[in-house]
């Protein structure tokens, strides 16, 4: 069985690096696939566009999804994922700066498994990312293979 894959959808390079740094510091060595906008994320997951020919048997174990993304927003990505039988069950964690109630509600309504606010303070942020990695990689039982 291939190594578990973490997918990060994040357009901000700083946040990307900080997230990766936090994962690395909490000793999570799983591969992290990073896409920088909504449409690229979908192309990666479904193996289309610039990710044509990707091995589709290897689906991310968890997707860390930012909401504010260029081209296609995070909520739209979530909607597409939930509409497709191949990706309907993939755990999606919304990881965002937004504390807007509306964002939270819509995310959960569209089928997000979790909603985590990125704290400004790095140590807290690192803590959150670390806990997320540990939980979804080690503690959580992923849905049976589809």
């Amino acid at each position, binding site marked *: 069985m291939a190594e578990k894959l973490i997918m990060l959808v994040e357009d901000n390079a700083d946040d990307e690096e*900080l997230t990766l740094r936090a994962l690395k510091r909490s000793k999570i060595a799983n591969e992290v696939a990073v896409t920088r906008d909504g449409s690229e994320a979908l192309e990666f997951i479904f193996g289309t566009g610039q990710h044509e020919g990707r091995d589709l048997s290897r689906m991310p174990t968890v997707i860390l999804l930012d909401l*504010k993304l260029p081209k296609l927003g995070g909520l739209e990505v979530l909607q597409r994922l939930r509409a497709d039988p191949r990706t309907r069950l993939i755990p999606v964690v919304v990881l965002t700066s937004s*504390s*807007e109630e509306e964002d939270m509600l819509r995310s959960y309504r569209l089928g997000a498994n979790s909603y985590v606010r*990125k704290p*400004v*303070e*790095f140590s807290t942020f690192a803590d959150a990312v670390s806990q997320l990695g540990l939980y979804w990689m080690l503690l959580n039982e992923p849905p049976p293979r589809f």
Partner: protein
Amino acid sequence: MAALVYRSVQRKLLRAVLLSTLAALLVAIAAMVAYDLALYHRSWIADLRTQAELLGRSSAPALAFDDARVAQENLNLLRYRQQVRAAAIYSANGRRFASYAIDPAQSFPALPEPDAVRIDGDDLIVFSRIINDREILGTVYLRAEYELYDRLFAYLGIAALLLVVAMAVAFVLSRRLQRAVMQPLLAIANIAREVTEKRNYALRAQKLSEDEIGQLAESFNTMLAEIGRATRDLEASNREAAREVSERRRAEEEVLRLNAELEQRVRERTAQLEYTNGELEAFCYSVSHDLRAPLRAIDGFSQALLEDFPADVPEDARRYLNRIRTSTLRMAQLIEDLLNLSRVSRGELLHQEVDVAEIARQVVQDLRHREPGRNVEVSIWDSMHAHGDSKLLRVALENLIGNSWKFSSKAEHPQIEIGLLRDGSKNTFFVRDNGAGFDMAYANKLFGAFQRLHSVNEFQGTGIGLATVQRIIHRHGGRAWADAKPGKGAVFFFTLESSAAASAGLRVPQSEAA
């Protein structure tokens, strides 16, 4: 109509005149006839009695001497009185001594009767005793015509003729009288009709006589003048009313037009507001997402510097980096508070029954949880209810109680009291502490955003909390104010609409164990 009335009145008058004439005549005739008949009756009887007496006196010697021839001659003298149909003289022993009759077939009573007068059919019969020296010599019998009914019928004939003539005269006279009376009345009636038809109240009845009808004409004219004036007044006021109505209609149309205009303007403003609100939402959303990311990067990479190059960062640089991080976090807090302030201003209020005491208890519990080391005596009154948005009221209480919690941190025995003053329908809640307080000279700055009465070194804070509280209370239609003394603590008041369920609340403070 007038002609009919006229005719009817005329007939009534005529009938009245004729009937009264008839009645008067009948009574007069009846009285005269009765008197005459009674007189005739009495005088005729007296006459016959006298005649019988005379016959008796003149025949007494004949009876005494039994000389029937003399008696017969006496009787025969009666032929000069044609009314006497028959006569006889009876002797004392009842024998018919002599007799006389116009009609030879006339029968006589077989025996005489005592002195008597009676009526037998059309005849009057008289018996009269012949007395001489108290000795009854015989009886005279007279039968004479009794003409009472003949006379009566004759009278009736005369009466009938008299009645006819009298009635004819009365009729003619009353017609002339009527003309004199009715003509002025008819003239008034005609004027009345003309007035009714033409609505011309300037017409006047002519006064034809100085009597009741003349007075009637005068009164009628006065009435016409009165009606004319009243009508003119009425018409004037009608015209005034019509003018007012049309003015009112114009005003109403104006109001409708203004309303439509206003509604249009409201729609436009609403659209503008909605657009602005949308912009604001987008702005806040953007702030919420984008403004924090760079801060996170600043903080994150400052920390990375410290962690990844522990040996290369000198002590001063480490201190500066920490300052950068502190400012970053403060900036993040400011953004957070600003977003909160904006959030309480946006969105619909969800009005419902709110248990203020329960929210206060939860807020205090959170504070105790966050700072377990603090020992604060908190008393929250029982049964405090209000009508409002529970989420926003919680934010307000979080800020107020949080302030009390924060500013009482340097007090020896920190105390916080949350209560409710009820005055009629007005509910004034208060949050009291014995903390640092403040100078009331700055009270007007208290609720402004970013206004602080203490330095950050003294007490942490962004200065947005009370602005948020005030905005929440204002949105509920309430008022917020404060009272304080430096070093003696502060009381923050706010009013909220009471709810019906709150009316049964108690005012007994309930101490919560610290």
